[in-house]
């Protein structure tokens, strides 16, 4: 009787002490120490278990059950405490790793496309989506392609408008990308849709609105039954792609030796009409010179500036900004 009471009381005290020890343990090592002291091979609870053998069988079962239950409670408590301590240790480590998130980020300096490069890319993609083939031609041209094949004979007054840089008696820096058209024309079979972008040169001094070097996109469509209305349709579609679906275009009569009828194309942008280039139906003489029968085939052609629309579009007041390549400017686009 006294023995049994004694075991149960001992168990009660022991469990109480163990609980307090667990609660006091601050490190994983301390938790393990508590486990060893109470539940280890020579732990106090283990030792108490061994005294069960001295009890009479009927009491042994009850006391054994009480002891096992106490052991399980302590194990649960120990594991939970170990988890708490691990979490606390991790928290402490993570806290010690705190950084200053307000310091600047690290990254390579970004590369930017030039405004003209971006515009050229955009324009070519639009025409490509309308079935045009992109071609290139030389910047050093002959009078033959730059003028004669475009129905601009020597001493034509149109030559005044495009005073050119010459390299020798027949070679000059092309004054219009249209020269590429008449290079391409003879070698193709209809239907042909061709577009070309590149540099052109005119004898203009560099100032706010002129540059001796500038860019143009030029293209043409030849087939049986190509109409002036197609020219309007294609260029208006281009304008909508370029400047938004609400873009308005205006075609006004003009004069170019290589087109008849000829038109000046303007786009309404911001609050005014912006002239962006010339266009028209290829003059029959141009088709004839390229070996095409103008009775059977008709063609429209266009040549648009790159710099001016880009200036208006992006609010660039001075053409020289394109050529200065000030990164404070380029980085904005």
């Amino acid at each position: 009787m006294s023995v049994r009471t004694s075991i149960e009381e001992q168990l009660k005290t022991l469990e109480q002490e163990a609980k307090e020890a667990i609660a006091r343990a601050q490190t994983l090592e301390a938790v393990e120490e508590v486990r060893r002291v109470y539940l280890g091979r020579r732990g106090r609870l283990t030792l108490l278990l061994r005294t069960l053998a001295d009890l009479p069988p009927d009491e042994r079962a009850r006391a054994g059950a009480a002891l096992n239950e106490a052991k399980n409670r302590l194990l649960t408590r120990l594991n939970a405490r170990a988890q708490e301590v691990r979490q606390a240790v991790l928290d402490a480590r993570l806290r010690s790793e705190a950084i200053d998130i307000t310091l600047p980020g690290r990254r390579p300096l970004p590369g930017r496309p030039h405004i003209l490069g971006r515009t050229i890319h955009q324009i070519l993609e639009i025409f490509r989506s309308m079935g045009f083939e992109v071609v290139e031609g030389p910047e050093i041209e002959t009078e033959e392609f730059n003028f004669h094949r475009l129905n601009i004979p020597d001493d034509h007054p149109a030559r005044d408008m495009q005073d050119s840089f010459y390299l020798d008696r027949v070679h000059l820096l092309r004054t219009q990308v249209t020269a590429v058209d008449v290079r391409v024309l003879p070698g193709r079979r209809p239907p042909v849709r061709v577009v070309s972008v590149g540099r052109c040169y005119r004898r203009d001094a560099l100032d706010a609105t002129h540059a001796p070097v500038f860019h143009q996109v030029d293209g043409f469509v030849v087939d049986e039954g190509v109409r002036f209305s197609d020219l309007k349709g294609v260029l208006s579609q281009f304008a909508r792609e370029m400047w938004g679906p609400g873009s308005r275009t205006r075609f006004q009569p003009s004069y170019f030796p290589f087109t008849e009828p000829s038109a000046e194309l303007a786009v309404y942008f911001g609050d005014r009409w912006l002239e962006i280039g010339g266009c028209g139906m290829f003059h029959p003489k141009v088709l004839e010179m390229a070996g095409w029968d103008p009775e059977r085939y008709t063609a429209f052609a266009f040549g648009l500036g790159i710099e001016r629309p880009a200036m208006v579009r992006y609010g660039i007041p001075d053409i020289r900004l394109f050529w200065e390549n000030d990164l404070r400017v380029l980085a904005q686009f």
Partner: protein
Amino acid sequence: MRVLWSWLVEYVRTPEPLDPSAWAERFPMLGLGVDAVERTGDDWIFDLETTTNRPDWMGIVGIAREVAAAAGGELVLPSSEVVEEGPPVNEVAVVEIADPRLCHRYVGRVVVDVRVGPSPRWMAERLERCGIRSINNVVDVTNYVMLELGQPLHAFDLDRLAGQRVVVRSARAGEQLVTLDGVERVLPEGALVIADAVRPVALGGIMGGADTEIRPDTCRVLLESAWFNPVAVRRTARALGLRTEGSARHERGGDPERVQAAARRAAELLRTLCGGRVLRGELDAYPHPSPPRTVRLRPDRLRRVLGAEIPTEVAADLLRRLGFDFQSQGDALLVRVPSHRRDVEREEDLIEEVARLWGYDRIPETMPVGALGVGHLPEDLLLERELRDVLLRAGLTEVFTLSLIHPRDLDRIGLPSEHPLRRAPKLLNPLTEEHTHLRTTLVPSLLEVLRTNRTRGVADVHVFEIGRVFGSREGGWEERKVVGIARIGRVLQGRWNLPPEAVETSFYHLKGAVEAVFEALHISDVSLTPEAAPWLHPYRSAAIWLGDQRIGWMGEVHPEVAERFDLRGRAYVAELELAPLLRGARPAQLRPVPRYPAVERDLSVVLPQDVPAGAVEQEIRRVGGPFLEACEVFDVYTGPQVPEGHRSLAFSLRFRAPDRTLAAEEVEGVLQEIRAALRERFGARIRGA
């Protein structure tokens, strides 16, 4: 062309008065660009931009004809009445065209007893509003008629013409003339001149001579109205650097009828305004009269070309309003071109006339019918795009630089005089002193971009340009594309706590960008040799080879060159030919992703300083054989533990077999062979082994 509204409307009769404010919008729809509109009092001045094919638009009557046609009104021409008296004109003066190539028609009239004095106020005012200074009543009449009809006129003092004779001929060698502006000019041989019996007295169509000009005491005037060869006028004007209101008009071509009408009109004005008497008849040299021109218009083709359903009667009516006569010929119209529209030569010209007056804005918008082409970008342009994208991703900003340079720019990059890049094509007629040649390399332009930015306080400049360069060779010119890269400053944002070598651009950052290009285009056959171009640091530069072709240079900018571009700090520049790059490009091809694990080992060797890391790597790869998958330098060290004149290189090696897991012993065996080879080949000492 300045057009005074009140003057213009004198020639237009419409049921309703015309509204000038609306015409600022309407002129452009006829092809007359409006450069400016001025309002003065209750009048308007339109500054119109007229195209070079329309000489008739160089006179107010020509503009009035368009306005009348567009407004559905009627053109009222100025009176062509002239009251003549006295002896026949051919008894007092002679006109002769000595060279018919220079002059198509020359009409002379003589007015006697003129009293030279100021013009009436209305005339002086009109002239001045149109931008012409009033001189005296005689000269003013010639200018007035020029503005009115577009036909330039000249008035000679008949008594100062030797032999009372004018001859249109070309200038002979050494002939001189003092022109109205007081300048004594040596006439280029062949220039278009008007001479009297003895000497040149005027530059035909351009400017009169001082000797024969109208003076206060002039009393007999010979009026000249002519159609000079536009090319001859243009050539003479250009040769002398002299452009006038007259030459601008003559250069656009003439109208034989207008020549005569203008002479009559001016003579009559001299009679009424200067008190003169117009002698009977006219001196009309017109050796080969122009026949009237007839052009066939097929209304069906007109509709087909324009894509607009313009009824034949409507087209015919529009042409009639512009002064064209026509008669039907089957389905076609035979159109007689009036003399003031000599620019109309073919059916297309008539189609444009109809479209213009009908309204371009009324032509619908359609898309081309027929076979749908597929948009196409040729292979080389696709690759060029790829290249551009790679460079942008590598942190380089695209720049555009002018392709015109001065040889000075080549001096600045230290090119010796016989260097091939000195063969810059030279412009025959440069406009400015700094743009006289085509560029042969992007290097000076790119360094200039660095300079500009640095000067403006931009410290980190990393740029590239893909552009054309030029050259001259035996019998011609060449042009080709190159890609240039230039870098200076830091390559990273957020550089706090980083060692400078990680942040500042170096040769290796430049090389990294170049490598990115090769990688993107899948080009493997690339090698570098330690060589320098003249603008590069001789020991920090390389020639870039693709196979056995040198395709470019890269390196640190030579300190002397850097100084010429005000570049403090080290700058780097590379330039590569585009064509071989694009030829060498290969499409990407998938290599199987390895299935077996790799074995990684580090190898650290001490070598004499002058053994290049690349040579060591090559040897490692050679001995390492097919299982050596990667070999990369990860440390380069000189310092206390390494003997003088030596350096330590550490490589990280990765071995892998495609079909099994490599055993550690296999890898160890290969490593042994590598160590032995490095010892033998370079006298390397293996660290930690």
